[in-house]
């Protein structure tokens, strides 16, 4: 556990969260999933993008929470919002209406084309499928937002060769699939993990390693990825979290008494 006063040391989760927040620089509106995406989006509001409009599927537009919400329906999200709309309106007019720049998603399983499974996992022969929470808003968030960011921890359990179920399409089986399916948005543009950042190769739409977090090696990332991960021509290294970023992140979390108990490994 990091002490809250030491800004020269930080956890991998903090690296992930800070870089996820940075990815929101310049965005106007973000459809925020709960958990890590919500941490990132709220951190962005407190650092790189104070004007970012946070949109939660519970119907809040422009929420400005002072602490991390435990659920997408925490009272503060509504109380601090510019507008609260019914859930059908949120999905039809705002999300499907193409009003939202960035969809920020987590995932249980992701494959090399940034397709997502949050429905069921195969637990081997003679065992019943393992049940995950399900789709929520993700299929239409990934389809209709201008672009999609993803944030999840890196492990072979999460980054898999083949999804057991495609809940939410990322890039399908390669370039052109989204267009063929008539999906308005550009789809996943970055997957931010606790080891680095993967982005789709423009030519193949396959996720490749483009940045490592400080102190992480390509080998570590490959070992945590369930497919033969390719790397970009040049693999960059992300800037270490600044003291200001870390202070903002830790303040958010301590205010939130977040339920993500395992945030700091």
């Amino acid at each position, binding site marked *: 556990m990091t002490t809250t006063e030491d800004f020269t040391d930080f956890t991998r989760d903090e690296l992930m969260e800070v870089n996820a927040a940075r990815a929101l620089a310049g965005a106007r509106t973000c459809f925020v999933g709960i958990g890590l995406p919500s941490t990132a989006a709220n951190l962005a509001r407190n650092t790189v993008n104070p004007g970012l409009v946070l949109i939660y599927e519970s119907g*809040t537009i422009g929420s400005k929470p002072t602490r991390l919400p435990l659920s997408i329906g925490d009272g503060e999200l509504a109380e601090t919002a510019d507008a609260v709309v*019914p859930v059908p309106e949120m999905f039809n007019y705002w999300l499907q209406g193409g009003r939202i720049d960035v969809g920020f998603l987590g995932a249980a399983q992701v494959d090399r084309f940034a397709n997502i499974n949050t429905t069921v996992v195969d637990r081997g022969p003679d065992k019943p499928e393992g049940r995950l929470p399900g789709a929520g808003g993700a299929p239409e968030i990934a389809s209709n937002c201008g672009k999609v960011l993803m944030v999840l921890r890196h492990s072979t359990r999460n980054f898999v060769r083949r999804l057991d179920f495609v809940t939410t399409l990322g890039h399908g089986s390669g370039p052109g699939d989204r267009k063929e399916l008539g999906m308005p948005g550009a789809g996943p543009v970055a997957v931010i993990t606790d080891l680095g950042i993967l982005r789709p190769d423009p030519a193949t739409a396959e996720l490749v390693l483009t940045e490592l977090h400080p102190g992480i090696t390509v080998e570590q990332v490959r070992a945590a990825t369930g497919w033969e991960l390719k790397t970009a021509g040049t693999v960059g290294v992300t800037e270490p979290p600044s003291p200001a970023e870390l202070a903002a992140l830790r303040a958010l979390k301590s205010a939130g008494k977040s339920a993500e108990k395992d945030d700091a490994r």
Partner: protein
Amino acid sequence: MADIRSLHDAVADLIHDGDTLAMEGFTHLIPYAAAHEVVRQGITDLTLARMTPDVIYDQLIGAGLVKKLIFSWGGNPGVGSLHRFRDAVENGWPRPLELDEHSHAGMANRYVAGASRLPFAVLRGYRGSDLATRTDTVSSVTCPFTGEELAAVAALNPDVTVIHAQQADHDGNVQLWGLTGVQKEAALAADRVLVTVEEIVDELTPRPGGVVLPTWVIDAVAVVPGGAHPSYATGYTVRDNAFYQAWDPIARDRGTFAQWLDTHVRTDTVRTEGAGVR
């Protein structure tokens, strides 16, 4: 016209074995007290509909009252899994649970179609997802103007919808405010509607973001202060996040769950929702 009744009588009269029952409330205003009354009365073989099943349906599923679940996201918000839901799906305990699974956009539009008394709704959804392969309530239609193929979802018209609201007046008109989710649609889509409320007031004062349901679309109103606990009612109660976190270990184990249900719901004939959990 809504009659103002006891929760016991309203549930007994309006909810029957085998019904399709929607208890809506998007993290806010979840009608827990009514669900507990369903448990106490042992109303069973239910098809439950809800966008986010949440702990409320974990309890009904674990109690063995549910044969089918219509939903789009089944977790304990901000905490993790719904263990009773998972146990039912994965192991058939205490009984097998049939699923009709959607995306949020699809579920919301199913209620919209239901409230509009249309047989289906159209959305640009489910594209590239395997979801449609596991349900017969997603199909497609072709736009007669552009030729674009779009998803069609079947209307959802529950036999009964139960919601929790802040206030009713003496005539049974109801107002809820804050996050109002899909409650209007779920209520207007149903054949019968029960609303539990925090209190009866002499006059409903229009509120910012308020949704008013006139008495003539409601069958019964029951006064149940705190009836949304551990969820909350803006202006009356706050979300009991600690309960949601405490639920995880309770629901993880069949025995612990059964004991909790016996102690805190089944024997709780005088309603003392939420007591003794932490």
